[in-house]
């Protein structure tokens, strides 16, 4: 029994039954398939998380986001800055950099993106770790203070998309949200 020493002292010389051998081969091949499929997705798929990252001081990053928001602030027909509940709406030019700052407890600013255009989205935190969770699309990325991660993001649908925080960041964690608008 499994709780006794093997009855055959030379157990390693016992042959392996073909049922077990067959399953070993199947499991091994399936593992290899899954391994190579991850590599293949880098060539055939459009959803591969970028690994472009830089070290950055949280204060510096915050300054750059503020500069970015000022520069690309969305204006309405009368030339007034557009905001959502006091958070500025920023519309970066297609194909260029867009910045998002995670801080206690909001994603700042609101971004307005164009459908089908690629943006270099910068993500970092001003304070603690946060979790960028774009809903209902369900793209989830960790955000660390001191590290700036850049992903090339292309929205494929229009509408308003919420960003919630899914890394615990203190007592206000459940109030931390943000918004990405996608327009034609």
């Amino acid at each position, binding site marked *: 029994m499994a709780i006794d020493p*093997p009855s055959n002292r030379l157990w390693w010389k016992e042959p392996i039954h073909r049922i077990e051998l067959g399953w070993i081969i199947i499991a091994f091949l399936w593992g290899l398939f899954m391994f190579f499929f991850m590599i293949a997705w880098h060539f055939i798929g459009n*959803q591969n998380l970028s690994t472009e990252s830089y070290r950055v001081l949280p204060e510096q990053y915050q300054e750059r986001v503020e500069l970015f928001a000022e520069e690309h602030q969305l204006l309405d027909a009368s030339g007034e800055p557009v905001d959502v509940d006091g958070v500025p709406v920023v519309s970066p030019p297609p194909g260029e950099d867009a910045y998002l700052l995670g801080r206690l407890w909001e994603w700042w600013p609101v971004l307005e993106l164009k459908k089908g255009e690629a943006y270099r989205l910068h993500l970092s935190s001003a304070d603690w770790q946060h979790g960028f969770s774009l809903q209902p699309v369900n793209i989830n990325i960790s955000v660390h203070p001191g590290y700036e991660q850049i992903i090339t993001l292309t929205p494929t649908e229009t509408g308003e998309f919420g960003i919630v925080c899914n890394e615990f960041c203190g007592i206000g964690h459940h109030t931390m949200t943000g918004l990405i608008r996608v327009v034609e």
Partner: protein
Amino acid sequence: MTTIDHGPIGLPAANVSYRTCPFTGRRIERNAELLIRANAVAAVVFLAVGGLFGLLVALTRWPAVQLLPAEWFYLVLTGHGANVLLFWIIFFEIAVLYFAATFLLNCRLATPRFAWLAFALMVVGGVLANYVVLQGDSTVMFTSYPPMMADPLFYLSLILFAVGALIGVMVFFGTLVVARAEGTYEGSVPLVTFGAVTAAIIAVFTLASGAIILIPTWLWSMGLIAGIDSLMYKLVWWGMGHSSQQINVAAHIAIWYAIAAMVVGAKPLSEKVSRFAFLMYVLFLQLASAHHLLAEPGMSSTWKIVNTSYMMYLAVMGSMLHGLTVPGAIEAAQRRNGFDRGYFDWLTKAPWGNPAFAGMFMSLVMFGFIGGISGVILGTEQLNVLMHNTIYVPGHFHGTVVAGTTLAFMAMTYLVIPIIFQRDIIWPRLARWQPYLFGLGVAGISLFMMGAGTLGVPRRHWDISLIDSIIPYEFASGAYLMMGLNGLSAIVAAAGGLLYVVLVVASVVAGPRLDRPGATLTFPLHKGGAEAVSHYGSAGTLKIPGTIILVAIFFGAFILYYFINWKYLSALWLFN
């Protein structure tokens, strides 16, 4: 065979006393027995506390109930993680290690004083952690990611616990040496002990990782170190956090084999294959800590692919092999026991009324189907982005750690109480139902959390209605339904957990005594298995058609779910 010099080890200390177990015919040494008892009792106490915390968490996350205020929710969630994921499981694992090295090898426990020191340190660490968390300044979650900082005592409590556990593991290794030197067994160690050895090896790596990261973090919390890099912390911390779950896997699979052997007389189909599968864990499971860094900045894709695949899924292969060999061994044994008709006579006529067997088999099925498959999906480089840090993640690990490990440990308790505590299980009718009740609840918890996670519900989050936010966002109504069903399932699981704790305490305190001549077990152990085994050459006469069908169903589900997730991923916004 190698010969071992018996000289330096010396004779056993004078105070070693053995008794013979009337049900198994094995020798049990007094110190080993006391230490197994102490660790098992401590485990159950921490399970009771952590389980209560878990129920409070689930009832708070049920949107229609939202039981606790936010501060208390995060505090209790921190306590839940530490109590059940660390204290309950590692105390029980130390008991399992001592059991596997002494009871299964007919040996005394090495250095009982060190074993008591280990126990004392672990108790102090566990109690201190609860005290500090309940103080309220250490609501940092079980993972305590910097730059969020806890009270220094929080880190110290975990360090004390880890050091204690490490000493316990060393006592286990020492006992193996003693058993070898005193010749208490013939040939190779039993498969269950081999599995326990793999768990212990992984434990050393795990506890060392914990020390490497928690000691500097502790110094940082006292102001002696300027800062802790958040990515470095995450990498090394998960060397403890995820690897400790791999101790569980090795330990609970060893328990599957042990229960199958003790209840139905199961013998491994092939010692070579089962041991090889355990060996794969030692070699590759540790890479799994990388699973937690798939959505982080700074790691290259190559690093992610090599590590998260456990080096080409060789550790997953280990689990898939156990997925065949454990039910296969049971089927072969049951057919030997006379249940040889049709494909599934062996399964339908299995001792389902024995809570040890029922819990073990449910643990096997749910660990594979719920925890195992979802774990591979979560650990795939690109698919991770779909569920990273959503409540899918707790859904997955409740499938592994609760449905898998905890249920297996509960099942094992129904054998440990008669053998080690010498008390029979009190209220057998209730005991019969306990694993089903708990299993049903846990299956619900896991599946509904996974369901809510695919709808984007974040983990560790007090209020998914986001009412207090500046910018509102409305989750799909399905998410609310899933979280409600999760709350209901948690009530069922908590009822099963409470029943377990009550049964254990009542049996230990007031169960029918078994140390009298002629006492019999309510849930009998398998008789005559040993004789049958010696005639049975598994490789020559193996016939396990039922298991082949079960494994084929599992593999089909695995492939299907794997590709469903790729399909889902391909519909996301484009990013690279």
